[in-house]
């Protein structure tokens, strides 16, 4: 503020600046808006969770169903994120390093899950694998459970988090071009050697950034998972679904306690994200840098 708010020698503000009163009001209004709409909900989560004291807070995690929900959420993310990671790297490699027809169509298709309601993302798998679905009779005949079981939850999560890593890597690898890889190849490295020793180190921070966002969404996904899960306590309840059940049972302390874990995950995600942007900004894609 100091160097921009200083009046010039003549005592007039620069013509491209607002009066300090206007500036004060605009900053105040925006800060108030962000505090009310973004910060306050976050504060409420922790206040409600700790409202009855620490022992009530911790008791929420002693519950077996809560522990099962945490385990399931970790397991689902541990499958969905690596799956989308491999896809993201492959898609970025193909799209950034080569020219081919239909590239823009492919990019649009990769973005598709972003513009689909989470509930519909879950519904498509029910229509495919559910009892009334295309493959339902076959799955029933062979005793394979997908809907209301782990595979359905994983599939819905993969669908919803599908674009995250690819979207971070594609612009980054396009910016970096192919010169480094061509140099390595001309010096005799094999394709895989080039990938592991040249490309991967080049994109590591962008990759971490994408994994982070993908993981946050995977662990927090609610709508899609709630359609395919069946809400069986201790079996197919993820953390967000467990929050819903506790909340609807008016068990507010426990609901907000489990929610506070998810809020912590969000805060850690934001923290690492900010650190990455500040320290390794020039190694992230331009689209990320300006975030």
């Amino acid at each position, binding site marked *: 503020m100091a160097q921009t708010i200083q009046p010039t020698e003549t005592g007039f503000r620069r013509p491209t600046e607002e009066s300090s009163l206007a500036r004060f009001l605009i900053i105040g209004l*925006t800060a108030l808006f962000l505090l009310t709409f973004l910060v306050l909900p976050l504060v409420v989560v922790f206040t409600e969770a700790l409202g009855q004291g620490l022992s009530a807070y911790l008791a929420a995690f002693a519950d077996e169903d809560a522990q099962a929900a945490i385990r399931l959420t970790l397991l689902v993310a541990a499958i969905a994120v690596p799956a989308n990671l491999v896809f993201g790297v492959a898609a970025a490699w193909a799209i950034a390093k080569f020219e*081919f027809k239909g590239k823009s169509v*492919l990019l649009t298709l990769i973005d*598709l899950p972003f513009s689909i309601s989470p509930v519909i993302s879950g519904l498509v798998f029910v229509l495919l694998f559910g009892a009334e679905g295309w493959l339902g009779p076959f799955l029933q005949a062979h005793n394979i459970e997908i809907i209301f079981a782990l595979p359905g939850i994983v599939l819905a999560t993969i669908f919803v988090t599908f674009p995250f890593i690819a979207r971070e890597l594609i612009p980054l690898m396009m910016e970096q071009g192919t010169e480094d890889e061509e140099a390595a190849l001309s010096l005799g490295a094999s394709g895989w050697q080039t990938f592991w020793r040249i490309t991967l180190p080049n994109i590591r921070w962008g990759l971490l950034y994408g994994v982070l966002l993908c993981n946050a969404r995977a662990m*927090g996904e609610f709508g899609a998972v709630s359609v395919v899960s069946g809400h069986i306590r201790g079996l197919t309840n993820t953390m967000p679904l467990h929050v819903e059940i506790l909340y609807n049972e008016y068990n507010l302390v426990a609901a907000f306690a489990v*929610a506070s874990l998810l809020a912590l995950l969000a805060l850690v995600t934001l923290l690492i*994200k900010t650190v990455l942007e500040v320290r390794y900004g020039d190694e992230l894609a331009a689209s990320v840098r300006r975030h």
Partner: protein
Amino acid sequence: MAAQALPTAGLAATRQPRVIPGLGLSLGFTLFYLALVVLIPLAGLFLHAGRLGPSEIWRIATDARVVASLRLSFGTAIGAALFNLVMGTLTAWVLVRYEFPGRRLLDAIVDLPFALPTAVAGIALTSLYAPNGWLGQYLDPLGIKVAYTPLGIVIALVFVGLPFVVRTVQPVLQDLDLEVEEAAATLGATRTQAIVKVVVPSLLPAAVTGMALAFARAVGEYGSVIFIAGNLPYVSEIAPLLIRIQLEEYNYAGATAIAAIMLVISFALLLVINLLQAWSRRRITGG
């Protein structure tokens, strides 16, 4: 990459071999995975809808409860997106143009809705705006009911959509040349005139793109809305929730038809967003 610059006449006809390997593997896997995870499941939904036939879909689409839910979903999404258009642009302006203590922190917190699970946001907003909540206790005596009304839905959608506008406008504002505003000032424009006639028009394409992204997200939003909405049929029941309810009643036809209608509208929206982004890019590079 192309080999057209080869001077040797004899070699001109032969194509330069690809240097970078792995196109077949990476593109093959990409297409396989895309088809398996996204395209086939989506096609399945449209096949289901197709089996219903147009008259059945029309009957479901014009059912009073379905119409009310679609109107609510799209209406609240538009309301929230317009609010975010104004407040998101203002937020971007403050974060880019002003230096003040806590600016970095506010900048970081803008991404919170991207990172916070929707269900957590949903229960937090509900307890804030419930009649006995921190904010609700002051709004309730004024006759302003937020929780369990469509206004509550708008609040939740504002939360979810805000970062889209801020993060779309911010880079454009950063690249905006201060010289243009200086020129306006030297030509005699007041600061207000310069902002209204010079700054706002240059930001408009980005702001509208951000608004469209926020709108697209808001239409399908589920987790943050259902807690605060009250979910009263015909009044505060959003379309995604109605899909869920149909599904729980084993009314697959109803769920499929509503989903297909929403998807068609969303895809049309996606097209509009792409056109907007092209417009936005033209304005920046061409200007």
